[in-house]
């Protein structure tokens, strides 16, 4: 049973639309992350948060934004979707002071047409 939930699993949307990808975890983890992955490529960190009201940009530049108003919730928003945003988006969380293992959600496969 998953402890970190991402919705939707799949999304096909037109160019210019605003979208929000949801991510929620029930484990009380302080740290949460968004990764972007294209087929055959590494996972690229685009955003992370070490706690409520704390967000940082990751290694890969992204036009998306995130918020962390509650510990369990870490949504990602694209104000104006473009075909270049087509990718898989993976949310993860981890607990401070553990063996650094992340728990990942099932991902959102986004296609912008």
């Amino acid at each position, binding site marked *: 049973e998953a402890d970190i939930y*991402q919705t939707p699993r799949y999304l096909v949307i037109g160019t210019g639309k605003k979208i929000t990808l949801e991510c929620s975890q029930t484990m009380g983890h302080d740290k949460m*992350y968004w990764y972007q992955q294209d087929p055959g490529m*590494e*996972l690229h960190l685009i955003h992370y948060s070490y706690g409520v009201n704390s967000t940082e940009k990751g290694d890969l530049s992204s036009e998306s934004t995130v918020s962390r108003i509650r510990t369990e919730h870490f949504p990602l928003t694209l104000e104006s979707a473009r075909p270049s945003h087509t990718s898989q988006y993976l949310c993860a969380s981890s607990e*401070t002071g553990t063996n*650094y293992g*992340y728990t990942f959600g099932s991902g959102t*496969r986004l296609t912008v047409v």
Partner: protein
Amino acid sequence: DQQVKQNSPSLSVQEGRISILNCDYTNSMFDYFLWYKKYPAEGPTFLISISSIKDKNEDGRFTVFLNKSAKHLSLHIVPSQPGDSAVYFCAATLSARQLTFGSGTQLTVLP
């Protein structure tokens, strides 16, 4: 600049044989290494990890070896099973900061 590299995009092995997945890294400051397994349409799941102060960690059929001088780690699966067919990602971290992932290796175990 890719700090964690998995140079083999795919690997096929016979059921019952050993699978060896390799990973190289460039940052000698990394202090913890992990392997994740990913099935299609699912998120990665944690498999096994190793601290930089060790050179081997074993968990059932899975063993991870770390060669710090060569900046190389490998994952051994013995014996390989068809259910092991998945994409395997190597990851590394420094001082518990965010993980840096390789590009993955697709393992196919043939029955």
